[in-house]
């Protein structure tokens, strides 16, 4: 029996499938321990009251309280929706615009590309500190510049009407990062012959952009849109460092409120329920995008 087992083991190691599975196993094990297991646990916790020492089953109470009795939950959700609806479209348009400009066979491409890329390399805490002083109402560079053209800027981080805009504006600083590079890669992947064919048909400028560039770029656009929305719903560090959620909860974003509930108030059941509400919202939004994508995303040669 022993030699039989050995032979079977030997046979197994001769099969490529065994090796393939072995090589991906680090990810699979990590997925089970750090993703799949925790997802189930978190769903379980969301129906309980849990503070690290005692756990009680409360049914849907966490969800009910959040949705019906917690004005801050709605405030945080509204803040986040506003942030997403401003920063995602602006961010995608700006990163596409930069990519288009950089793709114009310009001189000094490397220098320009570096200028646009560098801000996205700044660690988020350092970025938050820098912007805190950019927005400083007396000495900040923003209001100092505005004063030069005779405009009195608002108190960006103290006035609750201005704060949401300040955060949206700050998010634009990073648009030259990965998103822009992905657009640029997409632009460079469009074969020149397509433009030449369009030109022969008498299309130029805007028409070329509308009928060649945009459709060819739509898969990349879709990728950026899906991940951009998901990312914008998780804005955390900047608000935590710059305002702590203030003034008057104007920058209390969803992820910040969730973090406070989890690690400051130790309401881990409530925080888990918040996480699942967030996940559900993102699932619905992503599903809608995938459904509507068939109408505007163009995949060359079918499915790839």
């Amino acid at each position: 029996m022993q030699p039989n087992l050995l032979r079977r083991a030997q046979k197994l190691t001769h099969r490529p499938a065994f090796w393939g599975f072995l090589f991906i196993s680090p990810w699979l094990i990590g997925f089970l321990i750090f993703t799949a297991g925790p997802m189930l646990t978190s769903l379980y916790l969301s129906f309980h009251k849990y503070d690290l020492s005692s756990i009680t089953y409360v049914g849907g109470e966490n969800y009910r309280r959040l949705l019906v009795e917690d004005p801050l939950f709605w405030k945080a959700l509204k803040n986040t929706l506003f942030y997403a609806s401003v920063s995602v479209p602006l961010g995608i348009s700006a990163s596409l615009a930069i990519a288009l400009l950089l793709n114009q066979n310009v001189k000094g491409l490397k220098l320009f590309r570096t200028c646009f890329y560098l801000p996205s390399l700044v660690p988020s805490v350092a970025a938050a500190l820098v912007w805190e002083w950019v927005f400083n109402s007396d000495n900040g560079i923003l209001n100092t510049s505005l004063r030069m053209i005779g405009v009195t800027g608002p108190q960006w981080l103290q006035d609750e009407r201005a704060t949401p805009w300040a955060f949206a504006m700050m998010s634009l600083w990073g648009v030259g990062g990965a998103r822009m590079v992905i657009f640029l890669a997409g632009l460079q992947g469009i074969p020149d012959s397509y433009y030449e064919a369009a030109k022969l048909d008498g299309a130029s400028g805007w028409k070329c952009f509308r009928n060649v560039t945009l459709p060819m770029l739509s898969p990349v656009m879709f990728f950026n849109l899906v991940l951009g929305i998901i990312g914008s719903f998780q804005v955390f560090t900047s608000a935590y460092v710059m305002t702590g959620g203030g003034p008057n909860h104007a920058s209390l974003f969803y992820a910040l409120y969730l973090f406070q509930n989890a690690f400051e108030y130790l309401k881990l059941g409530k925080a888990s329920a918040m996480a699942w509400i967030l996940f559900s919202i993102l699932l619905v939004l992503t599903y809608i995008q995938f459904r509507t994508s068939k109408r505007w995303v163009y995949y060359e040669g079918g499915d790839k």
Partner: protein
Amino acid sequence: MKRTHRDGHPATRTLVYGLLILGAILFTVPFVWTLATALKSGEEFASDPGRVIPKQFVWDNFHKAWTALPFARFMVNTVMITAITTVASVISGSIVAYGFSRFEFRARNFLFYTMLATMMLPGQVTQIPVFMIWRQLHAIDTYYPLIVPAFFGGGAFNIFLLRQFFLGIPKELDEAAMIDGASYIKIYWRILMPLSGPVLATVALFSYLGQWDNFEGPLIYLNTPEKYTVSIGLRMFQDSFGTNFEQVMAASVLHILPTIILFFFAQRYFLRGINLSGIGGR
């Protein structure tokens, strides 16, 4: 490259350059201003905050920022954590990508798409249970929670980038080596890895950035100030020295600098790694 046909009209060219220069200035202003502020005296900042070149360069701000807190300590901690997680992500990620790109096995595509789908999962869903795991293992206030996850592939996006790159390397190379009797491990290490410089550099830079920038992780897991990383150390600095703009800016510059230096060295490989892996578009 192959873009000559888009050279266009002189007026268009002027517009393109005008917009590029304007944009480049807007994007660099916060940098220049941060550096300028970091070099000013407190009085000059108060009286003339907009001035780009300080009247007098106060290098002492850096010295003060460095010594006011155990900043050197934070730097050493962060470098250590980041170095380990970066190497671990590159190696484990490329092994996983090798498995996904070169082998047929049951449920491979299902597992691959599952992996891609995890990119859409907000971290908040798993955060609390993962915290409970580490607490159970008595690993709160240690570096394990920050380091260990990197050994499991280093994240879906990195694995995806690596796999895309590996798919572009001709399989004939593997097959030829196999006929010569090379093992799978040898093929991975001697054939795929040496040919993958750009994407390895890209993934290394992403992993580095992810960890160097990591704020929420250290915030949740580290309690003892001596164990802090730069990002939460900087936040602590803001609390205690928040009114000395110049010093806060000097400390921020110290946090940014290593990344920028690294980027300049990795730049050549980095952008090629992304270009070649192109997403969705082809």
